[in-house]
């Protein structure tokens, strides 16, 4: 049992690596641009939070009580921030847009290779695998992949960047507090991992069942015509 589990985990990892290779190798340049855009977008949003602190402490506070305040510093700060935000927005658009090229391109390639490979398989394969199962790989499974590539991967990447940036900011504020938060987070991760495991198991079962529906339907269609 234990052994089986590790093998499965290894396979998941292998599959993921293979998938990532598709993503990175087909569109190398675009992928690099996507990474940079995500970093820009994430940093812009983290800087946004820091900006308020800086604005209040360093710009607004000195001016309080000043009868004839000089707004030029405030204006300058806001313009700088606006530029950073615009860069962030451009970054967001760029990675969203390029990710479409990448995800759709990868999906197209996967479908092509799958079909190509299917043509080379021996008849025995088609006798032993229900047609419904094969058909649902082209639609359902590829569709799930689409979500993974175009949403999950950039999301994970963007979150990691934000996390690193936020961690830096937190450590700069208070080391012990940050450590405490990290311990709490670890506990939370364990709890949610427990649940995630269960849900992924159900998810696989669902994908399987869908192919059965498909099969049932084709079977039934046949029946309708023969009676």
């Amino acid at each position: 049992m234990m052994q089986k589990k590790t093998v499965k985990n290894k396979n998941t990892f292998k599959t993921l690596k293979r998938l990532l290779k598709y993503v990175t190798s087909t569109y190398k340049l675009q992928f690099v641009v996507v990474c940079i855009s995500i970093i820009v977008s994430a940093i812009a949003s983290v800087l946004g939070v820091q900006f308020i602190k800086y604005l209040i402490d360093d710009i607004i506070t000195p001016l309080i009580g000043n009868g004839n305040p000089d707004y030029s510093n405030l204006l300058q700060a806001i313009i700088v921030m606006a530029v950073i935000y615009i860069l962030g927005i451009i970054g967001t658009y760029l990675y969203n847009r390029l990710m479409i090229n990448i995800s759709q391109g990868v999906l197209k390639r996967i479908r092509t290779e799958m079909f190509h490979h299917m043509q080379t398989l021996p008849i025995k394969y088609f006798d032993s695998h229900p047609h419904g199962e094969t058909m649902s790989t082209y639609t359902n499974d590829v569709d799930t992949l689409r979500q993974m590539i175009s949403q999950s991967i950039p999301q994970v990447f963007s979150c990691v960047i934000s996390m690193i940036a936020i961690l830096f900011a937190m450590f700069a504020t208070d080391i012990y507090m940050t450590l405490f938060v990290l311990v709490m987070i670890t506990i939370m991760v364990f709890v949610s991992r427990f649940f995630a495991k269960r849900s992924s198991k159900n998810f696989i079962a669902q994908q399987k069942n869908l192919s059965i529906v498909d099969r049932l339907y084709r079977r039934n269609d046949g029946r309708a015509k023969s009676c």
Partner: protein
Amino acid sequence: MIKKLSKFIKEYKKDSILTPIFVIFEVIMEVVIPYLMAKIIDVGVQNGDLNYIFKIGAILVVSAFLSLAFGMLSGRFAAKASSGFAKNLRKGMFYNIQNYSFTNIDKFSTSSLVTRLTTDVTNVQMAFQMIIRILVRAPIMLIFALAMAFSINSNLAWIFVVTMPILAVALYFISIKAHPYFEKVFKKYDVLNRVVGENLNAIRVVKAYNREEYEEKKFEDVNSKVYDLFKKAEKIVAFNSPAMQLTIYTCILLLSWIGAKMIIGGTMQAGELSSIITYAWQILSSLMMLSFVFVMVIIAQSSAERIVEVLDEESTIKNKENPVMKVKDGSIKFENVSFQYDDAKAEDELPLEDINIDIKSGETIGIIGATGSSKSTIVNLIPRLYDVTKGSIKVGGVDVRDYDIETLRNEVAVVLQKNVLFSGTIKENLKWGNKEASDEELVRVCKLAQADGFIQEFPDKYDTILDQGGTNVSGGQKQRLCIARALLKKPKILILDDSTSAVDTKTDALIRKAFREEIPNTTKIIIAQRITSVEDADRIVVLDDGKINGIGTSEELLETNEIYKEVYESQKKGDEDDAEENGKE
């Protein structure tokens, strides 16, 4: 459309209602936590009251865990509700499809029905899950954050009220533009499915003729189209997040500029500005979530429409009110019958034109004609697989359209040219004809169909497992099993549509002999290419281009009918060599 679909929530109503309730609890907890934190800092720390800090701190920890628990519960119920909903949808569609006539199925195409049952339902399922979770969570968060912002400084909060509608309009335009592309994507998905399905079904032919490259090109065409359309649709949707960010960043900059002036002017506290911006971020994150749901809903909308089409489709062949529940006998009468397929153009030739035949109960009728002479079409009309366009068909003296469909089809058994066997044992397959049939009956009909012999030779006999599509029995054996299956229904009318084509002439003759002797009261219609299969029928109908060219016994036709005579002579000549070859099978 939503009303129609929501009917399918059925027994999962409880879960569908519990989900948003737990989401609300989760949001409340999330809102309470910063409030408690503020209490600790403002009251506890400032007064140096340790007791108070511990008390509120404990509540804080409990709230955090409750929030986590509520979040998980809502997730669980959402998953259950949405997959249950999807299950009911599939069931509803599947049941309705069972009522479809051939005309309905032709309209959708099989592959499209498959996509609708799988991909489209999955899309709707995911959207449903999003709606009952995120679509509840985000607006509540939004309203709460807005309310808090107003309570802090109503002048500043008006900035949100002005900018949000602009964003809403932008999102609306994005969805309006993207929706038609998604619609097209799913249509292309149908084609993709069809190409794959065809390839799978015909894989033997593809390999035998080395047509892999051609098939790949065909696939590549659809594949590229799916790719193009999907890209076009997603390109529009890609404006979603930037539009969102533009709005919120504009808000923050405006807040900073106006807020800073207010603080300096002494009308606002610095702390208030930072909390109002915190709420701005909360509003941003709920809007982000909303836009995410938005995309899913755009996609799901096209899918939902496609599902509703399947659910709404009414069978073109329906029971009349007070249908006739009993078929008197096996007599069949064609009166001026003409037939045209639904999708045919006006100038197309009629597949069947002005057919008049009177068949007595128990008679054996042979139908012969060149390919494309509508031999199969004529028999498809008897069990109402299609309805006649003009004229009428009477079975047992009653128009077929007046019968209860199930009653009629139970009495009319058709063995098709392309036979279908299912994976499972031989016994299971035969019992499709009649669930309650006893083992003795199974053997009896198999003897009639000359199938008992080869079944007994299998090591597992009637429990032999057939592969999908019956690939582990020969074509002739498959045909004989299908005949046995039809006989098990004990029909009043038995139609064999070229269903002994792979059986050797000797066995074919034995089957017909058994029919004559064992089921004399059943009307038998035999469609064949081989003249020997119909030669000994009571009467033979010669079809030519959808019209009757001649009716009569073999002897009569040989005298009077040119077509029959020609076929007869050409086949009889080669038959001697054929018989020898076939006999070896």
